C-alpha cells in the first residue's frame, strides 16, 4: 500500500444519499478474479444507458471532470455489500479520496485497507464543498497528517481513527503487522475451547 500524505486534486460532486455498492459496481462486473480493471465499470448504470451508450450528463462522463481525484458525495456512502470491488473500482478510476458526511462501516474499512482515503465532514461542510466542486476549476487539498480539507474559501478539520491514520501515512501491510503477534495467536489457540467446531 502506498503511503498517503497530501492529496491535491480536482473534485467530482455526486450529491446523493445512500450511494450503494450495487450502484458503485453492478454485480455483472464482479466476476473478475483480478484486483484491478474495475474502473471502467464504476457507476456503470448511471454512466451508460441500456444500449451501452454513454450518458453525457453523468458527472464522471463530463470531460471537465475527467481528471477528478476526490469524490464528494452524500451520507451513508457505500451502503450494502462487503464487496471490495466497490472501493477498487473507485480507486482504479483514479480517485484517491472520498468525502462524505458518513460512510457504511464495511465500505469505510475496505477503503482504509486498500489506501483509498475516506474523509468524514459535517453535512454543512460537504454541502459547501459540493458547491465549490460544481466549478471544475476548483481544487481541493486533503492533508492526512494535519487532518484538514482546504479549498477556495473552505477549511475544515476531519477525524480519523489514529491507528488507521498511522497505517495510511506509513502504507503499512496489515497482515505483516498482525504477524508480529504470531506468538500471541499461538498462545490463544492453545487455550481455545475444545468443543468448538473444526472441519476436515
Amino acid at each position, binding site marked *: 500500500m502506498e503511503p498517503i500524505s497530501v492529496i491535491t486534486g480536482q473534485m467530482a460532486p455526486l450529491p446523493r444519499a445512500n450511494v450503494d455498492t450495487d450502484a458503485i459496481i453492478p454485480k455483472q462486473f464482479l466476476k473478475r478474479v483480478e484486483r484491478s480493471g474495475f474502473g471502467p465499470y464504476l457507476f456503470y448504470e448511471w454512466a451508460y444507458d441500456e444500449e451501452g451508450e454513454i450518458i453525457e450528463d453523468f458527472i464522471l462522463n463530463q470531460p471537465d471532470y475527467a481528471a477528478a481525484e476526490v469524490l464528494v458525495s452524500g451520507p451513508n456512502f457505500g451502503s*450494502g455489500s462487503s464487496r471490495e470491488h466497490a472501493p477498487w473500482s473507485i480507486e482504479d478510476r483514479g480517485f484517491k479520496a472520498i468525502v462524505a458526511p458518513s460512510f457504511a462501516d464495511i465500505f469505510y474499512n475496505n477503503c482504509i485497507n486498500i489506501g483509498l482515503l475516506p474523509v468524514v465532514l459535517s453535512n454543512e461542510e460537504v454541502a459547501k464543498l459540493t458547491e465549490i466542486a460544481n466549478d471544475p476549476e476548483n481544487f481541493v487539498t486533503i492533508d492526512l497528517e494535519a487532518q484538514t480539507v482546504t479549498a477556495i474559501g473552505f477549511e475544515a478539520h476531519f477525524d480519523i481513527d489514529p491507528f488507521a491514520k498511522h497505517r495510511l501515512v506509513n502504507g503499512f501491510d496489515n497482515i505483516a503487522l498482525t504477524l508480529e503477534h504470531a506468538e500471541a495467536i499461538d498462545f490463544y489457540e492453545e487455550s481455545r475451547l475444545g468443543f468448538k467446531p473444526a472441519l476436515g
Partner: protein
Amino acid sequence: MTTPKTMYEKIWADHVVRDGGGNEPDLLYIDLHLVHEVTSPQAFESLDLTNRTVRRPDLTLATIDHGVPTEGREFGIKDPLSKKQIDTLVANCAKHGIELYDISDIRQGIVHVIGPEQGVTQPGMTIVCGDSHTSTHGAFGALAFGIGTSEVEHVLATQTLPQTRPRSMAVNVNGELPRGVTAKDVILGIISRIGVAGGTGYVIEYRGSTIEALSMAGRMTICNMSIEGGARAGMIAPDETTFEYLRGRNYAPRGDDWDAAVTYWKSIRTDAGAVFDVEVDIDATDLAPYVSWGTNPAQTVPVTGVVPDPATFADPLERDAAQRALTYMDLEPGTPMTDVEIDRVFLGSCTNGRIEDLRAAAAVLEGKKINSEVHAMVVPGSGLVKLQAEEEGLDLIFKNAGLEWRDAGCSMCLGMNPDILMPGERAASTSNRNFEGRQGRNGRTHLVSPEMAAAAAVAGRFVDVREWS
C-alpha cells in the same frame, strides 16, 4: 461483583488475542471463516504472491453460491467468467486443503444457509465471511460480520482480525405478532424505524418476547437484514430453541462436549442490568405485513398503505432520494400498494430461502394457480433444503401452482447468474435488497415476506395476507 456485561462484550472478550489498549484495535480470534467464489480469488492470489499460507484450513469452509446457475447444471456453467471464478475457488480450496461444497455436493448452497444447517455455526463464536449478510449467523448468539477481500486474506493468513470495538444497541421487540406478520416484517419494521444507517457503528442485540418466540429460521431472517439497517452484526441470545436446532447436527458437539458447550452457551447471554449504548423499543402488535416501495430497505409501508409523497420528507437529500426512487420504481404518490401489479416473484435468498420459508409459501399456494401474467420461481437456500422440501412434497405444490423449482444458490437475489429481471419488470421478492439494478438493470424490486410473495404470485398484485385464506 463484576459489572454486568452484554453478550457481545463477553464474546468479544473471549476472543481477544491481543488487547490494543485503546490506541490500537484489538486483535480478535476468528472461530469460523466462510468463503465463497466472488470475494475470495484476489485474497488467495495475494496470499500466494506474498508466500503466505492458510493458517487454519480446518476453521475455513467454502461453498459456491453467487454465480451458480439454478437450472441445467448438468450442462455445466455457460458463463465463462462465472465458470472461471468457480474453478478458481475449486483450485484454491484444493491447494490449501479447505473443505468446499462444490456444485455437485448436496450440501452446496448459500453460504449463510449452509453454516447453520451443518451445525458449524454455534453460539459464542466469532464468524466472518466476505459477505455483508454474515450477520445471519448472529441468530445463534455468535458475533458474525461481513468483511472485505483484504480482510479475507488477513483471516486466511492469521485466523485473526484487528477490530475496533463497535457500540451496542438493544432492539427490544415485545408482544405477540399479529396473524400474517412474519420475522421478515419484524426486521422491515425495525429498519423503517431506525433507517438504513441507524445501526452504523453498532452491534444490535434483538431481545424481547417476540424474538424469543421465533424459530431459528425467523431469527436468522432478522439477523440477516441487520446490515440493511447499517449494523455490521445482529445477534440473539442462545436458548432452548437454539440448542434444539443444533442438537445432532453434523458439527455440533456430542456427549460430554455437548453439556460443556451448553453450559458455556448459557453463560454468554447478556447479564441482567447490562447497559447498552442505545435501546430501541418496538411493540410487535403495531407491526403489519410490509412492502417496500422504494430503492432502499427503509422505504417500506404496510401493505394497506400507499406510495408516499416525496414532498412530505423533511430532509432535502431524503426527499431527493424518494423522488429518484419513485421515478426508478415507476410509482405515483398516493397509489395503494394493493394496486401495484407484478410481473415476477422470487422466493429464496439467505433471508428467506430456508425450509420454513418454503413451507410458509407453499401453505399459501396449496391448491392454487399463480396469475397467468406472473413468472415465479422458487430457489432453495441449499441442496439439503431442496431435498427436504421434495421429501415433504412442497416442490409439487409449487410446480402445480405454476412456479419454477430450481437448484440452490443466490440466484435473483443479486442476479450474478442468469436469473435476472428484465428492464421494467416488477418483482415481489423475499430477498433483502431493493437497490437500483440489484436484481437486473432497471428491474423493480419490492421486498416482502414469503407469504406475501406467494399471495402476490396468485393475485398478480400485492394483497394483504391477513385477509387471504
